[in-house]
């Protein structure tokens, strides 16, 4: 595969125009960290955005940052941290999941984060990448430069194409400049860990806290073996609820007391302070407890369905995993050859939602549907939307191609 490294808008546009004229497929990547997500792309050329870098503008008072697509996530996060700000959607750093790929820990790009629509544990309270992309410029599969959105928080001028770009895995257009909304970083963060008999009991507690005025910023349910992997001592119990509270200190301490009252003092709960909390949630967001597994899935389902879905799958095959998003994000690692079928059938009968194969060898990704199969009418509509941006299918062809649900 011929590698191309555009570093100016003009060179990027020329490369796409040439591919369009020749009708040759292009693989699109940042630094390749997320190469293991989605179906393998068969293309003659690869546009790598690794040199397409630079923070164009950062205005802390306006809560806005503009960066070119290949800018490293780490660089963005470090700059924001210097002004006590952050990306509230807590994008995971997935390099640890794909160690075998040629990814360097510092290389995940902001374009990759948006292209894959990544979000961490704060998804449940603060939203996802989609909620923070204010606007962008991009080169479409028609080799045309276009823009959408702006740099202000409140904007309904024209279609919100930022939403479409987020999670489109470079199949609609190649992003040039990305404008993000950023937020003040919380002053302190505490974790409250409640050991419970099983994951059902833990999810009930998390649900109860999210239905209270406590304003938790994360709710995770782990079985005992994951608790151990995270060095959390939950004694003889089978699972734990982990709740994160963030904000100004006086408020965080007050809300921890509220949690204690909610638990009616019948349930024990222990705390982790700032540093430990940061490390714990970083590990959870990045799927670290499962990172050694060869096959990893992420399933989005209604929060209350999480434990029963997890149990239904584990009743049929050997898996490990945990629940994030108050139960609504099920992480599963397994080995079984038919794990794919088990997940899709159990998901359909336990609340519904969508399952994505986050990590697997190239062979498996080639032969099963990596993304949730779609009903035929929705599938046809999606195909027409893709054609509206990339009529010749030159951008990352097949990378996300969803199957049609039977």
């Amino acid at each position, binding site marked *: 595969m011929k590698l191309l490294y555009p570093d100016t808008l003009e060179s990027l546009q020329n490369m796409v125009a040439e591919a369009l004229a020749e009708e040759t497929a292009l693989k699109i990547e940042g630094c390749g960290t997320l190469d293991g997500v989605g179906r393998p792309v068969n293309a003659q050329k690869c546009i790598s955005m690794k040199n397409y870098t630079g923070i164009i503008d950062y205005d802390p008072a306006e809560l806005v940052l503009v960066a070119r697509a290949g800018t490293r996530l780490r660089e963005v996060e470090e700059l924001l941290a210097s002004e006590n700000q952050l990306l509230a959607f807590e994008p995971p750093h997935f390099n640890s999941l794909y160690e075998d790929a040629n990814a360097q820990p510092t290389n995940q790009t902001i374009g990759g984060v948006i292209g894959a629509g990544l979000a961490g544990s704060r998804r*449940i309270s603060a939203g996802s990448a989609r909620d923070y992309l204010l606007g962008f410029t991009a080169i479409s599969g028609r080799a045309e*430069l276009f823009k959408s959105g702006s740099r202000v928080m*409140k904007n309904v001028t024209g279609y919100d194409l930022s939403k*479409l770009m987020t999670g489109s895995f470079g199949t609609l257009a190649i992003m040039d400049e990305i404008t993000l909304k950023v937020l003040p970083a919380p002053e302190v963060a505490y974790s409250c860990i409640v050991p419970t008999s099983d994951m059902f009991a833990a999810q009930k507690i998390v649900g109860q806290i*999210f239905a209270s005025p406590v304003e938790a910023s994360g709710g995770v349910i782990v079985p005992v073996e994951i608790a151990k992997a995270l060095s959390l001592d939950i004694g003889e119990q089978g699972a734990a609820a982990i709740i994160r509270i963030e904000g100004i200190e006086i408020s965080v301490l007050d809300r921890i007391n509220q949690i204690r009252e909610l638990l009616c003092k019948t349930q024990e709960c222990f705390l982790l302070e700032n540093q430990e909390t940061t490390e714990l949630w970083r590990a959870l967001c990045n799927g670290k407890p499962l990172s050694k597994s060869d096959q990893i899935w992420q399933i989005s389902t209604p929060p209350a369905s999480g434990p029963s879905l997890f149990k239904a799958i584990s009743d049929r095959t050997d898996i490990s995993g945990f629940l994030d998003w108050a139960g609504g994000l099920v992480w599963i690692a397994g080995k079984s050859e038919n794990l794919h079928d088990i997940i899709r059938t159990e998901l359909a009968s336990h609340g519904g939602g*969508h399952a994505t194969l986050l990590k697997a060898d190239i062979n498996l990704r080639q032969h099963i549907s990596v993304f949730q199969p*779609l009903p035929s009418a929705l599938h046809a509509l999606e195909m027409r939307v893709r054609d509206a941006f990339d009529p010749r299918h030159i951008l990352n062809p097949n990378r996300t191609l969803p199957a049609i649900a039977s």
Partner: protein
Amino acid sequence: MGVPSPDSEILSRRDDIIAGLKSMLPDECVLDSLTSMRAYDADGLSSYRQTPLAVVLPTNVAQIASVMRWCKHNEVKIVPRGAGTSLSGGATPLADGILLSLAKFNKILDIDYENRCVVTQPGVTNLGITHAVEDAGFYYAPDPSSQIACSIGGNIAENSGGVHCLKYGLTTNNVLGVEIVTMEGEVIRIGGRHLDSGSLDLLGVLTGSEGLLGVVTEVTVRILRKPSTQRAMLVGFESALDAGKAVSDVISAGIIPAGMEMMDNPAIRAAEDFVNVGYPREAAALLIVELDGPSVEVDALLESVERIMRKAGANSVRLSQSEQERIDFWSGRKAAFPAVGRISPDYLCMDGTIPRKALPEMLVKMSSLSQQYGLRVANVFHAGDGNLHPLILFDANIEGDLERAEAFGADILRHCVALGGVLTGEHGVGIEKRDLMGEMFNETDLKQQQRLKCAFDPQHLLNPGKVFPQLHRCAELGRLHVHHGTLPHPDLPRF
């Protein structure tokens, strides 16, 4: 402004079209007399009135699907309508189109406290959702000023905001799923009680698409637990510029209030005369800052906010001491539009957004434009997120006044774009701002947006004449012009 001129061929088929509609719907669901259609001839942009070809009020999804399929087959246009409160003419009827009202889709289908969401029909009002869940301590966060009347389906179409979206986001950040009927009559479900789509985010692009892509027939929204404490602060300033700067200072200090609103002197006076809640009538500008959360947090942050306000030059600060007082503080702001309606025979409500820091500059520009056009203007802002609502006062009985007011409004919006802002923050483009789209987007941008439209509705039958200044045929938009190895548009402007 205005809508495309009607197709006389369609008008000549009116009787057949009405007969066609009546073959699919019960008689009482089709209105075709002038008197029965009068209530539907305009939305909130009431200077533009047009009697539609017919009005249909279906009662179930199958009826909507057959009407859409039939209209596609017979090439008849459709304008969807929720509660008709759009301020940009999103539901302005077409003389040669059918108005499809969702008014009978007025039931909440399920309240799911375990997953903290509500499944509802689109005709339920925004406030109706909160009313249904408030006994259990929950609410639906986006709160447009028209929330007592506007429908949740209309909120999806316009991506409505409100005073609390500074902290809680707009409609798009609070919707989990929709069911839509496409122009082909297909019923498609996107999202649900879970988060995100796992494929292209069509839910995100449908939200705010102004009824041009599909008709929403069911909505799932997330609900939030009410914060334990809400307190508001009224802050008066002698200088509007100082007030504008104070808004920026609060955000810079890392504080994101639940809402941060600003009113200028004409708006303060009009509101105070209307509701009498003790707004400082002499102040040049008034800020209402609301904080919510645990009481210790609210008290601590209010202290910081007060310090920032005083430093920025505030000369009066009042803190709500009771829930009633908090509601009173808001009552003037929430009644600002009708209050201004009392001091002027007519007013135009504009809606643009600018970067927060440009607020002082915008205020200066606005007063010079006001002098230039000889029209008064009263300002209410969602200052925290830079969203402006200038109310331009005029008298429609004076010849040329409406046109002058519209030109004044267009100048304000142009200046919003020049300052790095946008044409509309929450009211939508509709017909009102359609012809200004070129101020913000170039031809390539607009064509790309229209190609998306073509993926949903290649014949431009659904709500045509809204949003886009010029309609291109989809076949023409789909054409590619490529020469070997050369750019399709070598002269493309860079921005």
